């Protein structure tokens, strides 16, 4: 789960990190009032959970409250990479002397938290890593020891930070690490951390991602989830305990297990089609779950065929077949469907499907056969 810039920065502030005294506006009128309050010039920034807002025109500078109102009315409602802008953050404009990067993330390979700093702030850190990896100073943190003072000094020294700022930098680095731990973040970054006109450090942009597995112990953060930014189907699926990701293709896929779901998506591509979604219905395949999944798949207008791929391990395939047939009694499906059931009691499962003799449903024995049939059906309809 990702947090907006304003959510991340306000949280950073709770951990002693200096941020601009900004406020969020939902309307242009609100933007006017806020700009008047904090005093121009102000920066107006689109709050969307996607990158590239600067390039898309989602960040503007205003010299007067009137101008702020105008900018906000342009930015609000803007579409940035398919995300509608519903909120803007107004920050007092800063005099930027230098831009630094500071971030904490989970290093999967090292299986430890990693804190990184770079004098090349303002740029996307992945780009810096690709072009000039030596400009990123890295310190792995022992999860039991926490971030040590010497490690912060290593970072400050490595990025050639002026000595008079080391104390401020240490406060910010410690705050960011504490915030990362306390929030169960997978990423907490300040980019850029600027040296402003008065020679102080200030976190002017921030980003946080939270570990979904830890949300059970982060009730405050769960409240911050912005579902307006994600496809409605993904929100609905999450509520039903399904794992769903919308894609651009035409073959709706319903599979048990995440790895098998990905392999099934890949198969449609291999045979000349493309997947409309990732959907893992989890263990078993009870009729009610299959019904919800079917509704979600059918709500996507791009879908031209539905492919069921179920491996019955502990769950018996004949039970799964019954679940699918029961769900079809509940949800009307006019599109062609291909069903592949394999594993425990597969003969019985296939017999049930054949006997039901649903005119727009065919069964397939192998995954390749199923994918081929689904692609052909999608192209024909």
């Amino acid at each position, binding site marked *: 789960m990702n947090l907006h810039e304003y959510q991340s920065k306000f949280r950073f502030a709770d951990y002693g990190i200096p941020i601009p005294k900004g406020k969020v506006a939902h309307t242009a009128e609100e933007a006017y009032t806020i700009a008047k309050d904090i005093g121009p010039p102000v920066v107006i920034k689109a709050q969307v959970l996607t990158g590239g807002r600067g390039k898309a025109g989602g960040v503007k500078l205003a010299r007067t409250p009137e101008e702020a109102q105008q900018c906000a009315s342009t930015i609000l409602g803007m579409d940035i990479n398919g995300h509608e802008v519903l909120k803007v953050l107004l920050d007092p404009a800063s005099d930027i002397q230098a831009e630094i990067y500071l971030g904490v993330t989970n290093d999967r390979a090292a299986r430890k938290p990693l804190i990184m700093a770079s004098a090349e702030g303002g740029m996307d850190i992945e780009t810096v890593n690709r072009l000039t990896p030596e400009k990123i100073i890295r310190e792995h943190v022992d999860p039991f020891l926490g971030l040590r003072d010497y490690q912060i000094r290593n970072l400050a020294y490595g990025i050639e930070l002026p000595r008079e700022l080391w104390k401020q930098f240490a406060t910010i680095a410690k705050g960011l690490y504490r915030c990362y731990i306390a929030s169960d973040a997978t990423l907490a970054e300040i980019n850029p951390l600027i040296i402003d006109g008065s020679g102080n450090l200030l976190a002017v942009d921030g980003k946080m991602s939270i570990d979904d597995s830890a949300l059970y112990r982060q009730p405050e953060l769960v409240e911050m989830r912005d579902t307006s930014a994600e496809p409605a189907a993904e929100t609905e699926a999450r509520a039903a305990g399904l*794992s769903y990701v919308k894609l651009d293709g035409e073959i709706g896929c319903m599979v048990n297990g995440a*790895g098998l779901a990905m392999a099934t998506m890949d198969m449609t591509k291999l045979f000349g089609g493309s997947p409309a979604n990732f959907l893992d219905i989890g263990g078993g395949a009870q009729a009610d779950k299959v019904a919800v999944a079917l509704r979600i798949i059918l709500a996507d207008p791009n879908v031209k065929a539905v492919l069921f791929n179920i491996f019955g391990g502990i769950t018996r395939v004949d039970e799964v077949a019954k679940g699918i047939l029961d769900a079809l009694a509940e949800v009307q499906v006019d599109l062609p469907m291909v069903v592949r059931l394999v594993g425990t009691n597969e003969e019985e499962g296939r017999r049930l499907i054949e006997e039901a003799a649903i005119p727009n449903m065919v069964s397939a024995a192998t995954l390749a056969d199923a994918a081929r049939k689904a692609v052909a059906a999608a192209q024909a309809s």
Partner: protein
Amino acid sequence: MAIFVDKNTKLLVQGITGREGQFHTEQMIEYGTHVVGGVTPGKGGEWVLGKPVFDTVKAAYESTGANTSVIYVPARFATDAIYEALDAGIELIVCITEGIPVLDMMKVRARLDQSSSRLVGPNCPGLLTPGQAKVGIMPGHIAMPGNVGVVSRSGTLTYEVVYALTQRRIGQTTCVGIGGDPVNGTNFIDVLQMFEDDPETEKIVLIGEIGGTDEEKAANFIANNMTKPVVAFIAGQTAPPGKRMGHAGAIVEGGSGTAADKIAALNAAGIKVAEHPEQIPELL
């Protein structure tokens, strides 16, 4: 021979009285796994499926001499269950539980590095040595004894591959599910080394997916350290970046962890990569 589990496995079930724990314990016993007892705090002294239940792992270990433990407890208690098994001196700990926070797993990793115990998982289907022992949730009857070692980050995709092998009468030494989380106890390289050292394993199937760089590291390890042939499959070629594909660890982040990168790395190491799961038996 096999790896991890066999006829000598003496298994303890943590969470034996829970719905999942009890169901799978029954399946494991039915398969012939030597289950010596279970642990559920507060239910010590009871019996489940003819097996004694203990309050603590320490007490269970002292009474039964278990050498392996499998964990079915809910995510918020699972980390504690792992530490408890570690402290009691269980050699092999298999954690099935899905949804353990990454920060907790990084601490578990740090502790594991200082101990002689091994953890498989979390968020994994467990271990299956056909004809000998089943520890976890893999369906036993889809496998048959043989000479192919299988290691995978996935669950049902593993079953699919194992089943396809069995259908072609290609048996397995041990099927290992290392789990779909970003930080886990045992990785591809650990298992590849064990298969390389296992005299009975002749060939290996590696099933990877998007996210992280473990497949790339495995490719490098195979090229430099292994004599046995490996066939691989990578799921997630059509997965978009930045989206988690079910498993916590299956996500393309910052342009790294793509299926294309992994396949390229495996090919460069001279490893055959199947286009789809059903092609694996042919490539073997």
